[in-house]
């Protein structure tokens, strides 16, 4: 079942032709286009830094967002109205407005508000709040929380009543039911979708470049501005994102294959 299986068995002619054309295009890009900027140590360092920033922002915001999404989804699925309504409103607002707008609202809006309060400027947090990345992490985390909160709502609702009733009949406490029955089954339901959601989140990360966070997109823009090379940095950018997406998909496929199949 590996990726290379078709070759060993029997790859049809058209695939060979397509592969040859693909390799030809790559060879043309590698030889005919201008990649000299890749050899400068300055840009090499920037590219590694950019890729690293993209990846840590992706991982941190996915994890934090998902942790937030659990109570948001649970409040909507089983909470009293005074928790369910705000959670629902939060999801509607996050899902109904562009992420770019949320990002700019937080960065420029909060960023212009904070300096007006002297106690914020004098606090120990100020050196951090003056930078751009906290706003990027906050906006992307809230975005994950909004989208995944909606998904978790469906997952919590989808857990069969019989499971919860059986747990209650065993005399489990409410917290015990949530921790041992409700949450694990809800998470098992959303696991197959999280890989796709992570790829979607990765596609949102270049937006942070618009608020001066130096991710790989910002590095490519910088190279384009410095050298006046139009296409090459963009092609490198596309390649980097393709590789990250491929790694995400492969990781989740591996992770899913290690999980026991759902019995429900």
């Amino acid at each position, binding site marked *: 079942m590996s990726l290379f299986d078709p070759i060993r068995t029997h790859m049809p002619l058209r695939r060979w032709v397509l592969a040859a054309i693909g390799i030809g295009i790559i060879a043309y890009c590698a030889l005919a286009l201008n990649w000299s900027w890749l050899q400068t140590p300055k840009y090499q360092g920037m590219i590694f830094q950019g890729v690293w920033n993209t990846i840590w922002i992706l991982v941190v915001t996915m994890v934090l967002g998902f942790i937030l999404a659990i109570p948001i989804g649970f409040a909507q699925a089983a909470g009293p109205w005074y928790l369910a309504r705000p959670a629902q409103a939060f999801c509607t607002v996050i899902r109904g*407005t562009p992420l770019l707008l949320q990002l700019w609202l937080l960065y420029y809006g909060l960023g*212009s508000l904070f300096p007006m309060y002297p106690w914020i400027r004098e606090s120990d947090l100020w050196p951090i709040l003056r930078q751009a990345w906290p706003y990027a992490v906050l906006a992307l985390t809230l975005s994950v929380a909004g989208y995944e909160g909606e998904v978790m709502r469906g997952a919590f609702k989808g857990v069969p009543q019989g499971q919860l009733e059986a747990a209650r009949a065993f005399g489990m406490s409410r917290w015990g039911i949530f921790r041992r029955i409700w949450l694990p089954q809800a998470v098992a339901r959303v696991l197959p979708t999280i890989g796709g959601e992570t790829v979607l989140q*990765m596609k949102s990360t270049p937006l942070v470049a618009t608020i001066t966070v130096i991710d790989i997109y910002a590095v490519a823009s910088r190279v384009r501005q410095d050298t006046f090379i139009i296409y090459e940095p963009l092609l490198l950018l596309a390649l980097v994102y393709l590789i990250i997406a491929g790694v995400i998909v492969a990781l989740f496929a591996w992770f899913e294959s290690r999980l026991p199949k759902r019995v429900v």
Partner: protein
Amino acid sequence: MMADGSALSASLDLLAYSPPGWGANLLRGLGNTVLIALGAYGVGMFLGTLGAFGKLYGGPLTRDLLGLYTTLVRAIPELVLILILYFAVTDLVNQALLALGYARIQISGVAAGIMVLGVVQGAYATEVLRGAIQSVPAGQIEAARAMGMSPLLVARRITLPLMLPAAIPGMANLWMIVTKDTALLAVVGFNELVQESRQAAGTTKAFFTFFMAAGVLFLCMSLVSNQIFARIEAWANKGTKRGGI
């Protein structure tokens, strides 16, 4: 309380329709956003329909190429695709024009935005419509073929109407995505709603006011769209039996 009241009225003054206020600019941006979203959605649906039929009924080569298209578009950020397609297509069109002996042209922001977002939408629409077509019972299509209908007639009379109920939730979702994706064109400097609000905010330094106003406009747009799609869904489901649980 006095300060709050005057801040509120100052915000409202900024949002007024006539010139000292920026209301007209925001509404013009909203108009552009809706225009691009509608155009890109149309292009996307067209490409998606072709792509879905190609993936299901096309030859092996067509299927491979379509697979490549949907995979690439779904793995590369829209922002990067917008830049690549914008520069590459403008360049290609101009080179073709020069080769044919015409002068260079400047492709308008609206046209470029519609085309780029349309290509992105097309990839997602391909998958949505493919799933919907697969939900049509095979017997229906076989029966239509047995009646001697041409493939085009089968598509028009049987497949497309029967797949609609399954396609509409996904297509509604894609509409929500494209309205929000128009915001990305702000990054390349196109004057849609987010860019207009940024310009207004940058000039007046009232960032909260204008970004909030743009957010409210986006929310209104999504709420209205939800209503419209609910109507369409009810219409598409007319006459279908609902499986009771």
